[in-house]
């Protein structure tokens, strides 16, 4: 964390004087530094975007490419949401790529081979994901086998089952509605215009909701006498976020509109953000990851929580499998290869701790976006897959090393 906070912490430890001398400037500075510390990962994303924007001569930021970035990485971001929750609780899931492939194959059978309606195929596929999650959750939570082993086994089991379901062939040509999950755009409601108005309206609504929400949170805190950040800094941040959303919306609007994948993602981020930040269940997940014994002795049902986390991961892995299959319009044996590693990387780049107890949904999403921008930027540059792999590995290592270094410096555990 910031250097201004370290002496304060020492004073607490010594049981001595508590409050450092305060004036307007130091309080300003401490808020700024605290925010930079908290949002360091966000700055890293900006740096990566800027870097590739420059070296690709702006191709990275072209409307079409921005739209592609979301669609190409949607399934990784979906997985990262579930993965970071698992990691916060102190587990890991190596099976998500195989589960995505297995569910993708099942959905192929439902929607193409059997010709079931697209919506029923999707529901049945998600249910299979839940069943897979229950299977793994049972072994982990109730039998007590480490998640690493159970999901390593799952990685093999479900890859194998995916091949069995596919019967050594690709299943392809999905119904249009199904394909929308990976390829569709919400647009042209108001006719075919250069700038899609719906996209802009949705973005404006999102900005208004954000600003109202932030002001209400702030007012609530003030009512309870809590410390809030200076109004200038608060407003400045909102302006920056508004500009970023505006730019992003403009890019989407001038291309094809809002990708369906983005809508799915936005809904997930909203729901899971609330779950992890505000819900009792989320508190339990953090408590279990932070200190399992203490959580147990506080009356938390740790097994049930673990079980539900894996069921949830199964459903999200199924969703990722559907999005990927829809995008390729093909359920194939190679689907989902290496997804688990990208999702795990996203969570760790986004600040999750290997020992558990620490991590955020937002961090995992940003971590996933960093990986996405790296993939995309390096592809534009024409870098081969071999170099892309190496660079991503290096980024993961450096991100976690930076985190470890930061924690050591601040004297945290």
């Amino acid at each position, binding site marked *: 964390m910031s250097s201004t906070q370290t002496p*304060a*912490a020492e004073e*607490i*430890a*010594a*049981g001595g004087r*508590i*409050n450092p001398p305060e004036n307007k400037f130091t309080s300003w500075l401490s808020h700024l530094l605290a925010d930079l510390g908290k949002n360091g990962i966000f700055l890293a994303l900006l740096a990566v975007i800027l870097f590739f924007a420059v070296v690709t001569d702006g191709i990275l930021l072209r409307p079409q490419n921005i739209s592609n970035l979301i669609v190409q990485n949607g399934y990784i971001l979906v997985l990262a949401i579930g993965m970071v929750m698992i990691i916060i609780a102190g587990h890991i899931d190596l099976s998500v790529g195989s589960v995505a492939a297995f569910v993708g194959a099942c959905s192929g059978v439902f929607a193409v081979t059997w010709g079931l309606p697209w919506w029923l195929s999707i529901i049945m596929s998600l249910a299979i994901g839940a069943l897979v999650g229950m299977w793994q959750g049972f072994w982990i939570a109730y039998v007590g086998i480490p998640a690493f082993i159970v999901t390593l086994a799952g990685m093999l089991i479900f890859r194998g089952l995916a091949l069995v379901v596919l019967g050594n062939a690709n299943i392809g040509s999905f119904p249009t509605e199904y394909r929308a999950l990976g390829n569709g755009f919400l647009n042209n409601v108001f006719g075919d215009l250069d700038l899609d108005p719906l996209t802009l309206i949705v973005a404006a609504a999102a900005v208004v909701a954000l600003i109202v929400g932030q002001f209400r949170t702030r007012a*609530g*805190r003030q*009512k*309870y*006498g*809590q*410390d809030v950040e200076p109004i200038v800094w608060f407003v400045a941040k909102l302006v920056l976020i508004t500009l970023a959303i505006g730019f992003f919306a403009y890019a989407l609007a001038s291309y094809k509109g809002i990708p369906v994948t983005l809508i799915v993602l936005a809904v997930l981020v909203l729901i899971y953000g*609330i779950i992890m930040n*505000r*819900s*009792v*269940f989320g*508190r*339990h997940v*953090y*408590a279990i*990851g*932070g*200190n399992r*014994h*203490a*959580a*147990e*002795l*506080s*009356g*938390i*049902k740790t097994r049930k929580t673990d079980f539900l986390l894996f069921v949830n991961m199964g459903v999200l892995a199924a969703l990722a499998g559907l999005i990927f299959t829809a995008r390729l319009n093909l359920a194939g044996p190679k689907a989902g290869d290496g997804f688990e590693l990208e999702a795990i990387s996203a969570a760790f780049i986004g600040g999750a*701790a290997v020992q558990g*107890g*620490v991590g955020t949904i937002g961090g995992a999403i940003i971590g996933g976006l960093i990986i996405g921008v790296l993939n995309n930027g390096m592809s534009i540059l024409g870098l081969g897959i071999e170099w892309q792999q190496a660079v991503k590995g290096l980024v993961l290592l450096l991100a976690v090393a930076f985190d470890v270094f930061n924690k050591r410096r601040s*004297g*945290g*555990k």
Partner: protein
Amino acid sequence: MTTNILEMRSITKTFPGVKALSDVTLDVGRGTVHAICGENGAGKSTLMKVLSGVYPHGTYTGDIVFEDEVVEFKDIRDSEAKGIVIIHQELALSPYLSIAENIFLNNEQTGALGLIDWNKTNHEAAKLLARVGLKENPTTKILDIGVGKQQLVEIAKALSKRVKLLILDEPTAALNDEDSDHLLDLILHLKEQGITSIIISHKLNEIKKVADTVTVIRDGQTIETIQKTDVTEERIIKDMVGRDLEHRYPDHTPNIGEEIFRVEDWTAHHPQDPTRVMVDNVNIDVRAGEIVGIAGLMGAGRTEFAMSLFGHSYGSKISGKAFMRGKEIRTRTVSEAIGAGLAYATEDRKHYGLNLLEDIKRNIALASLDKLSSNGLVNDNEEYKVANDYRKSMNIKAPTVLAKTSKLSGGNQQKVVLSKWIYADPDVLILDEPTRGIDVGAKYEIYAIINDLAAQGKGIIVISSELPELLGICDRIYALSEGRITGQLPIEEANPESLLKLMTMEKPR
């Protein structure tokens, strides 16, 4: 050559802010068994760590004379080279290696090319095992033998290092009666072979059985050294506790009501070894507004009792009944226990009490999230307010409740743990070592909080290894020994002597 193998002269050892040993003198006769007694925290283990080089020369003052030679150990290897071997309470054996491998760990029996000579290793190990009377194959893995036999392996390991002075720290604390007897016989047997032993023990009958000389340590000072013929239980107990009860406890006027909590025939077994009874038919009761103490030496089963009661968090094959206000309650899970009005604040804050990654606010709320939430969503403004109220009322020293608990001092961490349980609003609080690792000022505050809770009509059970603390704050004290309640004393009749007598009372054999 004198008759003393070891003389420790005027040993003083200070830790930041604490004088752990002050001018301690210890003379150990060659070929004798020398017992060291003292309460928990008296300084026995510190003294042995000084002797064995765990605390190297230069970190203490005073001289150690071993075999008529002033020695200055830099680490434990130095002392082992001279023939001083310490066997700690926590055995230092690697469970997945064989007996022979453990015996010769870091002292491997090598042959040509520096490779391990397994025949020699196992043969030598077998000879050592015969000396300690352990009939096991040297290739058996440590995890396949019981803790009593593991203790013997430790001694065999010491013998392999040509031990002259063997130090045993509470060697029988984890053993059953048969294993204990065997170990004590072995110590006497080694004495015949000329090996001197120092044995640290609480158990007075044990000391009487093996020791030639007893030295009592209290508050980091030598009280006296007694020859075998003069040893009496009364004398040792008096030496161990004879400290003034200063005015370290807030005034407490008990206002005791009806019985609020009762436990009947509570029995629990060791979690891994279901044949070992850890809590043996415990019956206790607590009345509203009463502070009840549980006194017991290390290993008496205090924490085991409390944790087995609180959601079966410890042990196996647990039986017995618990009643809250005369109505039987179920405590099979922690949430059941909390729901029935019980709370348990652990003796080990860092491992069992707090989530050190989180802030004060979330730690206080953790056991009572139901109160702070509707439809599964936590009201974090309300949470902040609740935590902030506790920060003020409990005097938790932190700038805000958003401070991480890992940054707090021990006393303030303990106040966070207590806040958590007080907010859960139980009828009965079990406080396990509530002031362990806390400075004197914070202790006083904790005692005041305990009094306050009793005044609100709650039943309080305090488990403590510090007798003065129990005598200072309790209305009634139970004594626990070897998992059994050996008696209870109202505070008027309780004193260190009477309590220690009950705490060291052993099972009729």
